[in-house]
């Protein structure tokens, strides 16, 4: 059984539910308007109205599609109305944050695997650090960084880094610890030095874990960036788009930004997946 048919079926089912939902959720407004205008709506007029409102509670799929199309293809990509422009703003901060976060995660993991003191002190607090609602204090973080002269892309990137370092840290610690006793003993029986064990055994064995957690990390970084943009007065980016859409009650704009963000996330994950395949294949681990 191939994937196409099931996926299409499920997509069709989702679209159906979505349309029904749009009709149901937007009907109240259509009826209220009719009542205010003291007219009666036929069922078909009601349905037609629910699917074409300017400020629907839930925009219909074709409205979102139109919004997406207009945002992506209907504008010059340098235009502030272009979703591609905003996606690019978000993407650059995401990548910067993801870079910082994964590097920090990897370095910490290396430290943790090699130093018992680091293992015992850092690990519990790394877990606790993730319970800090960074997303909730994102605006403050941005102000604090601004007061230290750090503005622009970097504060967002730091929030993104905060969210992405943890999965990378956990995955990498696990990965660096995968070599079993036998493999380590072999190294020992050859009197291998610490760096030799690291570069020739631990690092290669950890790569599959690293890639798996990089995928989680990059998605987390994207969420971090968007939230960093969201309430904190960023003027561009998908988060700002989401916010201004929400501020002006333009649900279609919110959903278009949301879908663009999801597509961006999917793209990033796919990209890492591709790199993973290439690397692991070269290493002979792809078979």
């Amino acid at each position, binding site marked *: 059984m191939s994937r196409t048919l099931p996926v299409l079926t499920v997509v069709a089912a989702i679209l159906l539910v979505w349309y029904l939902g749009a009709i149901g959720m937007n009907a109240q407004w259509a009826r209220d308007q009719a009542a205010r205008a003291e007219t009666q709506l036929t069922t078909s007029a009601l349905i037609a109205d629910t699917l074409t409102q300017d400020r629907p509670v839930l925009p219909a799929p074709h409205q979102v599609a139109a919004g997406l199309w207009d945002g992506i293809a209907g504008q010059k990509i340098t235009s502030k109305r272009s979703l591609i422009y905003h996606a690019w703003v978000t993407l650059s901060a995401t990548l910067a944050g993801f870079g910082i976060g994964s590097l920090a995660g990897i370095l910490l993991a290396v430290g943790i695997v090699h130093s018992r003191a680091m293992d015992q002190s850092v690990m519990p607090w790394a877990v606790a650090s993730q319970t800090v609602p960074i997303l909730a204090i994102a605006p403050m973080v941005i102000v604090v960084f601004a*007061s230290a002269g750090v503005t622009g892309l970097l504060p967002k990137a730091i929030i993104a880094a905060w969210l992405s370092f943890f999965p990378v840290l956990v995955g990498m610690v696990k990965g660096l610890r995968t070599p079993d006793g036998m493999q380590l003993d072999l190294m020992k029986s050859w009197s291998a030095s610490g760096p030799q064990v690291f570069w020739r055994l631990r690092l290669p064995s950890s790569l599959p874990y690293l890639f798996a957690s990089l995928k989680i990390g990059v998605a987390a970084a994207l969420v971090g960036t968007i939230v960093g943009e969201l*309430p*904190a*007065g960023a003027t561009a980016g998908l988060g700002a*788009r989401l916010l201004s859409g929400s501020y002006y009650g*333009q649900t279609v704009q919110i959903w278009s930004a949301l879908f663009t963000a999801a597509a961006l996330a999917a793209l990033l994950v796919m990209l890492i997946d591709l790199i993973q395949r290439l690397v692991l294949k070269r290493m002979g681990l792809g078979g």
Partner: protein
Amino acid sequence: ADDLTLQLKWVTQAQFAGYYVAKDKGFYDEEDLNVTIKAGGPDIAPTQVLAGGGADVVVEWMPAALAAREKGLPLVNIAQPFKSSGMMLTCLKESGISDPTTDFAGKTLGVWFAGNEYPFLSWMSTLGLSTEGGEDGVTVLKQGFNVDPLLQKQAACISTMTYNEYGQVLDAGLSEDDLVTFKYEDQGVATLEDGLYTLESTLEDEAKVTALVRFVRASMKGWKYAEENPEEAAEIVLENDETGAQTIEHQTRMMGEIAKLTAGSNGTLDEADYQRTVDTLMSGGSDPVISAVPEGAFTHLITDRAFD
């Protein structure tokens, strides 16, 4: 040229047209200033930005500024481009509210927080209404970014600005006949909005002071230009909006409403308005917004020198 950073209270819109016009029309350049305008957002507290050194001047509402001053952050009003308050409470007629003194009890009211709740709290305490809900009080809903709570009937009334949210309510399809509005001005609880504030320490620096003098002069020139050319001002605002979400219709209308609020101010703070604001804030029964008469919370130093 002297560098100056201005932190706005909210996102780029015609509410701040004067500053954008001054920048675009080169009024700041004429004064040999290099002004950076930072847009705000729902959870940006301009006072905090100022304290952190992220800006030299901020646009802030006086209640928040005075409250921050009492908290130990020495904000000083250096100019007041807005003469009147644009804040009001917009209610659905069907909720049966017609008189604030009798009809609010037991209702849900939408309010902005993050430093914007002070005028509302003052008003409620003048009315003697608790904000903790219940039969005799009002239930307060922290209003999000938009007017949905009213459209979805989650609240009987929501906070709106004459120049922005009220228009959005109308845009959404409600007509003026469906609504009842209560302007803070009319209720006698108006407080000063959009003033320019800086830190006391900034005013001790003569170089900064002269820069601020030029800044205020150029900004007021911008405001007056905007009042006279609302369409052009709206377009300038639109060009400066990086989210690309604003529309020209909306901004033009907003500019029209804003002009009504800036009219009558040449930038100098009217001490009577100041006194009324302080009185309103201190009248708040058991829980006033400020508890002591502020000292040195404004100065005419800048405006005097600017408009000589």
